[in-house]
């Protein structure tokens, strides 16, 4: 009996027949995540409903030396939940309980399959909310958010998942269960909770999350301003930061992104404007109102051609619908597209966008831009048509854009993760020793390399590089050369 067949038998006993998928057709449902360009059919998909069941699955995999990949809603855009052919997928979609809402302590305990937005909805009656808000928050799960250290439009002011998670119940790659973190942010010893957040499912599987909730702000002011150029929109953002104002969100869309969004949801953006800037301020009513006036003044000083201030919650929601729908909407103007996720120092945005436009022109491909302007997180959408044989060119351009961000002093990813997609670009951002150190940490958690293998760090299978941790070059060992 093969290891997989053996596992199927063992785990059917643990999870019941409904918790084990082995039908080849059904398995194909799990062959990719939101990054559909990479597809691998797993050997088995498991659907546990409790931490104990996840632990049992992982222990069985550990014993059988079978690789396993955790998966939430599958909305990741970097191939982080891509299955391993001879491995299993552990879907956490059935772990959707809001275990505890604790308004007195401004926290909630949830299972990993709960969607991001469901948390805020569940605590709204207490005037509380969960701050990190990825654009996919209606469908993406908190477990996936933890894996990717997700951000969203409001993280400029409020921070990322890592700033809002107090504790994580985690099944380690050997099947043991531990809590990382604790009931308060103060924990004795090294911060393993913080290390787990953003580790893309490679250090263990999170089965419980204690999130910190924030009090809803008293006032929220939102505007949509049109600008004659992206540069002027960007300068407005610089001036706002320079004035010591930290808005809850600042988002820019270019003409192509607006065109796509309007075609899909018709949120009332100006079709012909070269750039639209969404600014949202929140906080205590008096101060927020005062700062909002200052922000509008700065928009005018930078040549805004039109400002639309959201008069009420419905109009605010409409403005945000236009922004948050932009990715999916691009499907209306292009058969296929890649979403890139690089970050540049905010002050180099104009330079980055100019170069991206030139690179797009050179490649003969359109690039739409939607980005978190406050923190320099770009989301260039590289549009292409597979039928016209543009896939390879688009992929190459997308990768080049990510690496351009690193050249400009930024990062390969701001919120979508490295996953499978960008693992081979990691050496562009990090040196050999940096990667080897990350690998050492990974080995401490997962010496057998079974937990979401092939993700985050470059591997020979993916990139054709020399495997293994850092080993000194013979010349280095002899003291002839040195590295820093």
């Amino acid at each position, binding site marked *: 009996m093969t290891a997989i067949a053996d596992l199927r038998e063992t785990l059917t006993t643990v999870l019941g027949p409904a918790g084990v998928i082995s039908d080849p057709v059904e398995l194909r449902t799990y062959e990719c995540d939101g990054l559909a360009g990479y597809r691998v059919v797993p050997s088995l998909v498991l659907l546990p409903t409790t931490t104990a069941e996840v632990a049992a699955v992982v222990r069985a995999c550990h014993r059988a030396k079978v690789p396993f990949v955790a998966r939430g809603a599958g909305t990741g855009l970097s191939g982080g939940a891509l299955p391993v052919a001879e491995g299993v997928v552990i879907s956490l979609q059935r772990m959707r309980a809001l275990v505890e809402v604790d308004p007195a302590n401004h926290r909630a305990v949830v299972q990993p399959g709960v969607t991001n937005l469901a948390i805020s909805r569940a605590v709204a009656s207490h005037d509380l909310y969960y701050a990190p808000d990825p654009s996919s928050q209606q469908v993406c799960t908190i477990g996936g958010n933890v894996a990717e250290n997700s951000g969203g439009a409001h993280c400029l002011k409020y921070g990322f998942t*890592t700033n809002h998670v107090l504790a994580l119940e985690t099944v*380690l790659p050997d099947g043991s269960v531990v809590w990382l973190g604790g*009931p308060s942010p103060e924990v004795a*010893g090294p911060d393993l909770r*913080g290390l787990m957040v953003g580790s893309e499912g490679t250090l263990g599987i999170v089965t419980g999350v204690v999130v910190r909730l924030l009090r809803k702000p008293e006032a929220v002011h939102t505007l949509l301003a049109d600008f004659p150029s992206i540069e002027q929109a960007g300068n407005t953002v610089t001036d706002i930061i320079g004035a010591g104002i930290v808005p809850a969100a600042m988002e820019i869309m270019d003409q192509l992104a607006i065109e796509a969004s309007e075609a899909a949801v018709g949120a009332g953006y100006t079709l012909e404007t070269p750039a639209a800037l969404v600014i949202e301020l929140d906080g205590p009513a008096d101060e927020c109102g005062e700062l909002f006036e200052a922000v509008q003044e700065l928009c005018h000083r930078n040549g805004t051609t039109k400002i639309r201030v959201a008069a009420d919650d419905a109009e605010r929601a409409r403005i945000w619908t236009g922004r948050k729908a932009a990715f999916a909407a691009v499907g209306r103007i292009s058969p296929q597209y890649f979403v890139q996720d690089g970050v540049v120092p905010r002050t180099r945005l104009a330079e980055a966008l100019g170069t991206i436009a030139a690179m797009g022109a050179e490649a003969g491909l359109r690039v739409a831009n939607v980005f978190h302007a406050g923190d320099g997180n770009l989301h260039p959408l590289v549009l292409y048509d597979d039928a016209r044989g543009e896939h390879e060119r688009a992929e190459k351009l997308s990768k080049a854009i990510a690496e351009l961000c690193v050249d400009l002093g*930024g990062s390969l990813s701001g919120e979508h993760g490295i996953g499978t997609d960008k693992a081979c670009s990691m050496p562009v951002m990090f040196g050999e*020793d940096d990667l080897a150190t*990350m690998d050492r*940490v990974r080995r401490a958690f997962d010496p057998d390399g079974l937990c979401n293998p092939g993700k985050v760090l470059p591997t020979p299978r993916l990139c054709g590089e020399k495997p293994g941790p850092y080993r000194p070059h013979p010349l280095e060992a002899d003291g002839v050369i040195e590295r820093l």
Partner: protein
Amino acid sequence: MSSSVSDRTSTGELPTVRPTDLAQARDAMRDAARAGHRVLVRGAGTAQSWGAPVEPVDVVVDTTGLDRLVAYNPADMTVAVGAGMTMADLQDRLKGQRVALDAARIPAGATVGGLLATGDGGPLRASYGTLRDLVIGITVVLADGTVARSGGHVIKNVAGYDLTKLFAGSLGSFGLVAEVVLRVHPRPEASRTLAVPCPVTAAVPVAGVVLSSPLEPVAVDWHDGRLLVRFEGTAAGAATRAEKARELLGRGEVLGGDSEEAAWSGLAALVRGEEGRTVLRAGTRPDQLAEFAELLGSLADRHGVTAALTAGVGVGVSTVALAGGTPAGHGAVLAAWRARVLAAGGSVTVHRAAEGVLESAPAWGPAPATAPLLRAIKQQLDADHRLAPGRFAPWF
């Protein structure tokens, strides 16, 4: 050049290396590795008493020479500094901005790297977290001299493992923090603090009234018979909100200027502690404050010790200073209080122990469930256990 490490580490003078750049820091660690030397990494030394006493070491690597301002980009809200720069110095160099951290040790000269390695935070942690929440990139030197970078210079970045977090709270056991990139925030125009007299047992419900309002205090701490609720913002905004909070609670005094400063520095003095005191920090669920404060009071009475407590009410972080009585009395209070905090899922760290206390109560409690993992990480990063040996004994 040589210097003593600390009374609890060694009584003699030890060879000390004081690198002034990354290459020298790398060399210092590599030289120590080649010689098989045990190493204590030390910044300003304001937290050398945290955790268990370090066993004798062969060399001290003093990071205070790594005090360069590497890059400051106010428009990007980022600053990169050598880890040996004092936080006070860094704050002075920022223009209209600040690192939103107010740990009690900062006026005593605590370094940026030291504040990260201890995971320390002050009252502002309620809004901004501790340094782990503000650091966006680090460069470390491992025990074998490997120089490794994590994170970067942009505030939004999820590429690779966030090793910053691993070093936060590691007390120098995993490597030398050489360079730190931080995100900064605008310095608020003004602050006001509402001081409300109330017993610690009432602090949670009183604070709850403000915390469930939309007044957005940045810090809510109980200290010395008063709840201190701090507001920051525009001059008019901070004053208005403090006044609104006073109206909401129906009492209290709005402090500004010197009186506000005095209230918060009194709290910081308790947290810093002084010779002869035992200082503990606990993390608990916020609403357990009254229960643990009462328990502390009764334990202190039973063992003839004075216990002073201050607490970040909204976040559940308490600092306790034990004074008077005997070392055994301090030890007994530590052991019994910790046992109850641990049973409730919390944690206690020893920041300072009066002489002799650790003979009756260990610096660390029972090993947590994560101990095997911590040991595995230590093995990967410092296989010979040469860095800060004993600091986390017996956990790892």
